[in-house]
């Protein structure tokens, strides 16, 4: 009974946190819009006739003060109206339709990258901790260190050039949706996921290796050995779980960096995702669109972090006790 009510409180706390982060991020951004060296009116309002100009100013909400403008924007945003991509002379496409097309592609890229990076880093981290100080461990460490020191867009270009253009094993650029062809979808995602994921593998492996080495010194591991369990079973059922809190927390915090990284990688591989849209919005001075994108990224970031927090509590009861204490 008591446990249930604390769960509800926990969820409510999370929701309040989500609201505060989103409101904070978007309100700051809408204030920044007012501080731009180029006035929004000069930027977006065109036309020879005063009537025309007044109509555009009203449409864009530029006649309101900053606070009232923000409230209106928030109300629209909550209802799914993310504002316009402004075209000269007024009108223009809705940002929502762009988001609808771009967001799934970015989510796929980020999601595949996390899965790939964790799937490689977990066995690798455990293995190099198990063999800590031996030749195989040093080999893995140096290899990952080298891989991590290459910026992901250079890695992306190299992969596209070697595997895509020279060897012609995989398409060097382009995006194929699942609905069109599953095999081609996977083939089109492999190179961008590698480019984004390899530097991540390096940091994930190091984090896990450190924690596993610490866990291996615990008495309960010696006790598991004394029970007659195999090393593999001990590593995966006794050691991995208590060692993975730092790794998961870091995976959650990396979401922001991953979305930023995907901005570049999407351009390298011509994937029309959110990163591409954000880039276009920045260079095309589409500040209304940018405001919507930033809000979406902030929401995604907070949701993902909350999910990981709950997950960490599930795999390690000690963190739950600490939080409740």
């Amino acid at each position: 009974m008591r446990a249930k009510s604390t769960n509800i409180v926990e969820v409510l706390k999370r929701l309040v946190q989500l609201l505060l982060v989103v409101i904070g991020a978007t309100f700051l951004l809408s204030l920044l819009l007012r501080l731009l060296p180029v006035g929004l009116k000069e930027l977006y309002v065109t036309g020879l006739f005063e009537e025309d100009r007044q109509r555009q100013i009203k449409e864009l909400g530029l006649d309101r003060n900053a606070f009232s403008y923000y409230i209106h924007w928030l109300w629209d945003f909550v209802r799914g109206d993310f504002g316009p991509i402004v075209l000269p002379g007024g009108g223009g496409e809705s940002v929502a339709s762009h988001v609808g097309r771009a967001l799934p592609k970015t989510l796929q890229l980020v999601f595949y990258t996390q899965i790939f990076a964790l799937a490689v880093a977990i066995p690798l981290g455990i293995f190099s901790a198990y063999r800590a100080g031996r030749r195989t461990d040093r080999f893995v460490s140096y290899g990952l260190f080298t891989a991590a020191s290459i910026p992901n867009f250079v890695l992306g270009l190299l992969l596209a050039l070697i595997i895509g253009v020279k060897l012609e094993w995989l398409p060097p650029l382009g995006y194929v949706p699942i609905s069109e062809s599953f095999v081609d979808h996977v083939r089109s995602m492999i190179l961008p996921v590698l480019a984004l994921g390899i530097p991540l593998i390096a940091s994930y492996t190091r984090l896990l290796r450190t924690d596993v080495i610490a866990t291996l010194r615990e008495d309960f591991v010696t006790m598991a050995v004394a029970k007659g369990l195999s090393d593999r079973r001990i590593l995966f059922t006794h050691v991995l779980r208590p060692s993975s809190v730092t790794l998961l927390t870091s995976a959650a915090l990396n979401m922001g960096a991953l979305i930023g990284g995907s901005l570049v990688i999407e351009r390298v591989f011509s994937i029309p995702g959110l990163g591409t849209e954000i880039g276009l919005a920045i260079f095309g001075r589409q500040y209304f669109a940018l405001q919507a994108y930033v809000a979406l990224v902030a929401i995604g970031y907070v949701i993902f972090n909350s999910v990981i927090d709950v997950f960490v509590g599930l795999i390690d009861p000690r963190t739950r006790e600490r939080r409740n204490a």
Partner: protein
Amino acid sequence: MNSVLSIKNLEVGFDTPRGLLQAVRGVDVEMPAGSSMGIVGESGSGKTVMCRAAMGLLRGSNVRRSGSVVFDGDEIGALDSADVRQYFGTGMAMIFQDPMTALNPVRRIGSQLAESLVIRLGMDKKAARTRAAELLALVRIPDPEATLRKFPGQLSGGMRQRVVIATAIACKPKLLFADEPTTALDVTVQAQILELLSDLRRDLDMSMMLVTHDLGVVANHTDYVTVLYAGLVVEQAPTKKLFTSMKMPYTEALLKSIPRLDQPSGGRMPMIGGRLPDPTNPEPGCPFAPRCPYVQDKCRSEVPPLTTAADGHVYRCFFPIGGNG
């Protein structure tokens, strides 16, 4: 005589930055089947290292081990960690000093206990769970069913040590190593745990090697005693004989340093002055010579050999209490 454990000339050292640390320097122990043997000595005398080395639990590239360990007729001293594993749980088991760290904090008691039964005895999961509850009842834990679902963090130290004992005896081992099983517990709980161990040993027909620094515990719960000092056996005898005709000045000093209720309070606690010799750089002569009240010139230049008296009492002293023989 039918021995469950026979250790011959066991030496254990660790490579350290300061040189080789000799923790155990040639120990012989013979344990008749069904007996219980106390291993006594102060902290750093090599008790725990000897036990872990005998069971084959010491692993790592810095461990140097030699000598013969025969368990139940099989030579296991030279086996590598994968081969010695077949004896764990069913043949030999160990209880650890600190119940706070000996259980995996992120797994429920039930899964940790049933695991040995499933993996070592091949029971199916349901039967293992039933048996796990029986084992908890056997170590006198109230409400075994509820305890199975708990995490170690939800139990007290005494209860956790009972769980550790239940895990150790789960596969009915022939020999139980109890490494200071009560040191980390409250005095009232200590007595209960020792009673429990003695009862289990009788009911399950187990041999037990009880490591302790408390001669009082040895007097009540063992058949034989081995006294270790600086990695050497210094006295070995049936428990009754040891307490009636002590040969070693060191054993006498240990006995004198137990606080007694029947002596007037307020006086100084008797203790052994000085400390153990440096294990990386042993000096010539008897290792106890610098602290011995009966020391003579000969003791400082030569290590006394182990002497076996006509009645089987073994000691390592040139000038034993009560004379030679």
